């Protein structure tokens, strides 16, 4: 996917969209092969020890749980190695240990299970990727259209671990975001509902996006490419930004 150059820009020779700035905005980072998209190697404590690092696969987990369960209720950070997970905390029922306790999933307490996570290899879940061969397809990332899979009922991810009758506020407001640069004609389309099916409002507000109309400063494509704003999720786990038209449906 290197050197990727979508036809997002009109050719009116606008100065603001040439040279290095142009490259920075429209050169998307390479993504791993589909079965490894969203896989994370957690090395915070293991790199100093003899234990193999923990390989975590997002696609394995997001079939059964919405993003909010781990990234909010269980307090997992949005960046690798930033949560401060430790064996002690897992054993006490925090982080991974909140589910991996034999009641919901295999337990962190049993020594037979160590290798299931401490595999040291990003590819250790590769074989299980075929389990999702019947899911709706996309072109990029893990090549699975999770939104469609959810709508079709192929997956029934749990909405909340801690609140039994949890129902997200069905906030259904679509936003159309006007471009700020000369020469760019496309508008970004943001549907709230497709996000609230997975996320709590406060997963994004107010830290990532403040809620003031036109109040989110620096909301530009190059910042998204650096992992800010939409890029918090849409570079590594949610469909990657190579999939231009899913946010910019008016692209020619």
């Amino acid at each position, binding site marked *: 996917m290197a050197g990727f150059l979508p036809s997002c820009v009109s050719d009116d020779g606008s100065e603001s969209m040439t040279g290095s700035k142009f490259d920075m905005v429209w050169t998307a980072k390479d993504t791993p092969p589909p079965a490894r998209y969203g896989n994370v190697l957690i090395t915070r404590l293991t790199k100093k020890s003899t234990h193999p690092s923990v390989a975590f696969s997002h696609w394995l987990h997001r079939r059964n749980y919405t993003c909010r369960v781990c990234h*909010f*209720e269980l*307090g997992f*950070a*949005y960046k690798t190695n*930033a949560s*401060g997970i430790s064996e002690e905390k897992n054993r*006490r029922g925090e982080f991974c240990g909140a589910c991996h306790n034999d009641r919901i999933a295999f337990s962190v307490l049993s020594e037979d299970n160590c290798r299931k996570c401490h595999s040291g290899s990003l590819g250790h879940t590769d074989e299980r990727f075929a389990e999702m061969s019947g899911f709706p397809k996309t072109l990029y990332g893990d090549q699975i259209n999770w939104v469609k899979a959810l709508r079709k009922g192929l997956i029934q991810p749990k909405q*909340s671990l*801690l*609140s039994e009758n*949890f*129902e997200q*506020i*069905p*906030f*259904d*407001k679509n936003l159309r975001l006007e471009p700020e640069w000369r020469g760019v004609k496309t508008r970004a389309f943001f549907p709230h509902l497709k996000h609230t099916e997975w996320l*709590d*409002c*406060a*997963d994004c*507000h*107010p*830290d*990532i*996006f*403040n*809620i*003031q109309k036109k*109040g*989110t*400063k*620096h*909301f530009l494509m190059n*910042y998204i490419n650096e*992992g*800010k*704003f939409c*890029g*918090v999720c849409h570079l590594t786990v949610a469909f990657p930004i190579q999939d231009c038209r899913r946010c910019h449906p008016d692209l020619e």
Partner: protein
Amino acid sequence: MKLKAVLVVTILLLFTSVGFATNFGTKKRMPRPEEFGNVVINNYSEKNNIAPVVFKHWIHRAKYTCRVCHVDVGFAMEPGGSDIKEADNTNGLYCGSCHNGKEAFGPTSREKVVSEVKNCDRCHSYGKDVKGQKNFNEQLKDFPPSRFGNRIDWMKAEEKGLIKLKDQVEGLSIKRQAIAAPKDFDIKSTILGMPDIIFSHKIHAEINGCELCHPEVFSAKKGYTKYNMQDIFAGKYCGACHAKVAFPFYDCQLCHLKEVY
């Protein structure tokens, strides 16, 4: 002269580039359950070569209503806002109004009647591992869980009788006849599709009295104080408590609970 001007400009430029926030557009670290509501008070501590005070709301709110400290004692709602000095405490103000050896441990206590033990470390504990201090995980192990904050449903804990909150402290509080709490009311949402808020005066008045919110945080006249979610996120209005100590604003549906038609 010219050189001076250039210097000023470069210094200004340096300052602006340093002051430019780079952490925008990303998720902030969420406080851990045992950290939520903890406050570091460092008005004079470090200047006097002693560790700053770590005040833990969870220890205190399991015993007293908010009102006791924030109305009767008069603690500010911001860390450092009360400008507490050691002399204040020894004179029976602020922390000293309870931490006097009667209501709670004082600056010193006697062990086995003979030896005097200094208790400084128990509060001036920033960066220290103080032995014998209450452990969050052990103390609150069997408390009803909630989604965020301390991950404790404090109201349910009180209902279940796990905690009994003291609302009057002898020698400090002056009991007045209670004013009946006004009725619950809805706060209309200004955004289409966002559920209205049902606000319960009763629930709030039980632990806060009237004085904690009125008239400073909210005017007493309904509809007079104009505020929005942005203000609450910034720690104003509801955010005065619900951003730091009471269940945090992440848990939208605890307030936005009226059905949308």
